[in-house]
């Protein structure tokens, strides 16, 4: 059983990619930057007390599930969402939906997805993928991070949907049931921009938005005094990975957002957004420079105080730039 009019497409980021593919299947024509922008996906947060293996958490995006929820709500798409008490029920519900030719989005862990190279398979539970068919015991999977559509054994998919730890997916699956009368595209774009400006400018200090970047800068500058060189290197290594590795489209989603603003300029017929898109590209380049410098500090492993201070300064400069940027962006919409 294959839903043959479903088309896999690769995206930079899993959640915006799944949203895009599901909506495209139901005739809502969008692009990944539009999904990301309307979904107000861009964010920054640094939470030193939320630790994974002792490493403080940093994020460049809004919390999982927000983009999908926001985009579908804004564009008036009704979604059926379900979680399950047992894997058997969850897999049965998936099979039924596929029988009815519904491609199904699911929240999964990465650990059980054997089409990923081994070094990628951590217990990360907020991944998203789409099933669009079943052949024998294998499901046809459209994972937005992958270049091509792939396959996954039923028992692995079942394990991935019932991964434990935080956030537990509990077999969560979702698909559009009706596309309807939401906001027109231009209104949705404006509302998405406003929301992101609010997140970046007005989120409570010190952990979020532009304040969060400055806060991280302060923390990074103090790492060598607070921990062993080795731990400090792991902490900044984690920032690099969150920024570049996990499917951000580069520069911690900043390039994806710049692409969105460029499209927005055309949709809203506002030239000033083209200029702002260019500024966002420059900020993305600054983030890339930060990652490059951080990697060098990490490789050095001496715990040299001066080099960590320099990294901190880079982050503080980026914080100032993002503050100015979103203040300016807020004024245009």
């Amino acid at each position, binding site marked *: 059983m294959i839903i043959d009019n479903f088309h896999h497409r*690769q*995206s*930079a980021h899993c959640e915006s990619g799944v949203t895009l593919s599901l909506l495209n299947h139901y005739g809502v024509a969008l692009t990944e*930057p539009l999904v990301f922008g309307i979904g107000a996906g861009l964010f920054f947060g640094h939470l030193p007390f939320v630790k994974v*293996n002792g490493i403080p958490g940093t994020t460049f995006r809004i919390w999982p599930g927000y983009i999908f929820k926001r985009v579908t709500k804004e564009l008036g798409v009704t979604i059926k969402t379900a979680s399950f008490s047992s894997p058997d029920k969850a897999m049965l519900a998936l099979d039924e939906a596929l029988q009815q030719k519904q491609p199904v989005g699911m929240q999964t862990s990465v*650990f059980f997805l054997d089409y*990923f*190279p*081994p*070094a*990628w398979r*951590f*217990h990360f539970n907020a991944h998203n993928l789409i099933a669009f068919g079943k052949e024998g015991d294998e499901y046809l999977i459209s994972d937005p*991070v*992958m*270049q091509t559509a792939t396959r996954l054994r039923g028992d692995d998919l079942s394990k991935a949907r019932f991964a*434990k*730890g*935080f956030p*537990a997916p509990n077999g969560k699956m979702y698909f559009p049931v009706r596309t309807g009368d939401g906001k027109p595209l231009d209104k949705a774009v404006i509302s998405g921009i406003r929301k992101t400006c609010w997140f970046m400018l007005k989120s409570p200090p010190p952990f979020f938005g532009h304040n969060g970047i400055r806060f991280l800068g302060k923390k990074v500058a103090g790492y060598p005094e607070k921990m062993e060189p*080795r731990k400090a*290197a*792991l902490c900044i*290594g*984690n920032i*690099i*990975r969150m920024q*570049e*590795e996990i*499917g951000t*489209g*580069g*520069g911690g989603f900043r*390039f*994806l957002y*710049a*692409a969105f603003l*460029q*499209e927005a300029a055309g949709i809203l017929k506002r030239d000033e957004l083209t200029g702002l*898109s*260019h500024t966002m*590209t420059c900020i*993305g*380049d600054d983030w*890339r420079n930060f*990652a*490059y410098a*951080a*990697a060098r500090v*990490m*490789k050095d492993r001496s715990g040299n105080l001066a080099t960590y201070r320099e990294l901190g300064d880079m982050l503080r400069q980026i914080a100032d730039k993002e503050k100015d940027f979103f203040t300016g962006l807020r004024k245009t919409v």
Partner: protein
Amino acid sequence: MNKDEVPQDKKIIHGEDNSIVKMLYVTDKDGRYGTTQYTGWDAENLALTQAWEDIDEKIETTRQKVLQGELSPIAYYMQKNLMDLPTLAGYVGFWKFRVKKHLQPAAFKKLSDTKLARYASVFNISVDELRHFRLPA
């Protein structure tokens, strides 16, 4: 970032190519956005390599402790499966403090076969392998 500046650095970890060809948003010479594919970037590859070195070292330390009788085999397999205490507790369905206790050799020896079987199935090994810890490096 300009399309010409995109790095194509392979991600070699544990001596094997672990690259995923990902999508990147880049500008062309006129500043128009588009996408391009890339295999990786040294900066991020280094960060992942470092994370794995840390994991591998933790696994080895735990292995030594198990062999010296300081920790139970559950501690080793927990590390080996990249789990922390809350994650393992979630998978086996015991309270965290119980799992913590089972990491001690004394409590481990008293575990019933049914409980051992729950751990073994989470770790994807046999009860026998779990009970008689004799690991190659």
